[in-house]
């Protein structure tokens, strides 16, 4: 059997794949957080709950309306994104200009409420969500067996991350977003409706979390606690990438996911803490994050 640094190649590649899948979720979630923080200057503590809401919306669509995975993958981000936009209009808009702590506390409270509601009705254990039949089974790559659904998760995450990056870096709407991040008053003085832009941005960030939630449903099951299990790691990813940096969130998400996977192979004891150790080092050496502006 081929060995790499004393580790069998299939084991190494298997962990790399798990790292890449985790990284796909880290990238999608930290991308949404970074977009929201970049423009709204708000630390969206409800992001994990909105990811959970995405998974539950897909689950509810299936069980109450018979809507399967593929339509849910489109419908869920829209439904949860609109829910996010309504939250922004009704509540978050009142918090702009105040200490960021108010936004953090509000979104933290929102996360607890959402989790509480789903725990009340579904308990803490997960609900199964079947892998779509078209992605059942796996593909033998010769050196490893790749479950089709997990391959799809990596591809879908990459496409959505690159698409979102292109939207922000290469379009007029993205130019408004980037400019408003720097000086929203001046962008308003140019005639751009920044309040609507803020609502759309929050809705987009929440929709990305919901999209990740639908992708996660067949892998991790649908559980009220699935968001709080991942959100702390995602915050660490955003800090390492640089708060508000779009490219930083995407690249760091994948790199830290893979790093976590490789740590499981070479030093399993550190696999749960490696991301936080990296975060501490980055904060010491480069407080603005790897891709953040000093």
């Amino acid at each position, binding site marked *: 059997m081929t060995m790499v640094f004393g580790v069998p190649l299939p084991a190494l590649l298997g962990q790399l794949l798990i790292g890449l899948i985790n990284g796909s979720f880290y990238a999608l979630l930290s991308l949404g957080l970074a977009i929201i923080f970049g423009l709204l200057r708000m630390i969206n503590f409800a992001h994990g709950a909105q990811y959970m809401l995405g998974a539950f919306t897909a689950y509810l669509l299936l069980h109450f309306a018979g809507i399967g995975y593929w339509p849910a993958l489109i419908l869920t981000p829209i439904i949860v994104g609109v829910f996010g936009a309504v939250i922004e209009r009704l509540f978050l808009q009142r918090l702009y200009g105040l200490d960021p702590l108010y936004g953090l506390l509000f979104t933290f409270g929102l996360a607890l409420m959402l989790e509480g509601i789903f725990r009340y009705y579904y308990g803490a254990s997960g609900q199964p969500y079947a892998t779509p039949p078209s992605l059942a089974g796996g593909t033998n790559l010769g050196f490893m067996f790749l479950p089709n659904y997990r391959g799809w998760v990596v591809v879908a995450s990459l496409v959505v991350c690159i698409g979102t990056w292109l939207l922000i870096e290469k379009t007029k709407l993205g130019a*408004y977003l*980037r*400019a408003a991040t*720097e000086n929203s008053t001046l962008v308003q003085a*140019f*005639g751009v409706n920044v309040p609507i832009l803020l609502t759309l941005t929050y809705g987009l960030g929440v929709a990305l979390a919901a999209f990740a939630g639908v992708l996660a449903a067949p892998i991790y099951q649908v559980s009220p606690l699935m968001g709080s299990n991942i959100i702390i790691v995602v915050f660490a990813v955003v800090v390492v990438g640089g708060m508000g940096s779009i490219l930083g969130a995407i690249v760091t998400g994948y790199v830290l996911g893979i790093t976590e996977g490789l740590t499981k192979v070479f030093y399993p004891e550190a696999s749960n803490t490696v991301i936080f150790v990296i975060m501490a080092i980055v904060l010491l050496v480069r407080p603005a994050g790897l891709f953040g502006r000093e």
Partner: protein
Amino acid sequence: MNALLDVRGLNAWYGESHVLHGVDMQIREGETVTLLGRNGVGKTTTLRTIMGIIRQRKGTLRFNDQDMMPVPLHKTARHGLGFVPEERGIFASLSVIENLMLPPQIAKNGMTVDEIFELFPNLHERRNSPGTKLSGGEQQMLAIARILRTGVRMLLLDEPTEGLAPVIVQRIGDVLIRLKQRGITVLLVEQNFRFASRVADRFYLMDHGHIQSEFPVAQLGERMDELHKVLGV
């Protein structure tokens, strides 16, 4: 002829601090008017209040015969008012061309990108550079150019010569003369009255948050004592 911009008894506050105490000014279409005054007398606040950036305000503010007091900031520009701030507001995360194309077009009579590049050849050469990599003079040109592209009727220009080399100040003067020839109305805040005298039709002299006096450019010579006293030069 009705004034394009009609300001009467304009008051403004920063929180508890009362900054403008009844500013009056009337500017006709096509005029270039300079607001002179020392640092801290309320010149920049006057522009920001007219533009709607400062919302704690009272008084009468009409532009093109429309009451601008209830108009939200993001709709002010669509009425034809453009603002170039003193700090220029060039966005670091946007290239020169992205900065230039950022403000939405509000009228068809704005300058085309080709006209802008003809007027400011440096911007064409550096169109793909990050906006903040430009020199101070080039950033000022970019800040003016991006508003001219939108087709504004009136430009509020805050200290465009601040901190710039004399040769660049001369160039900005040339640009303002070109704007005047195109019929664009300009309200210019400036401390350098020698520069302003090259382009302005009239002056408003401001002190302690209100207009102290108003005179045409032809009277500049006779007003030197007053200018020296108010401006402290």
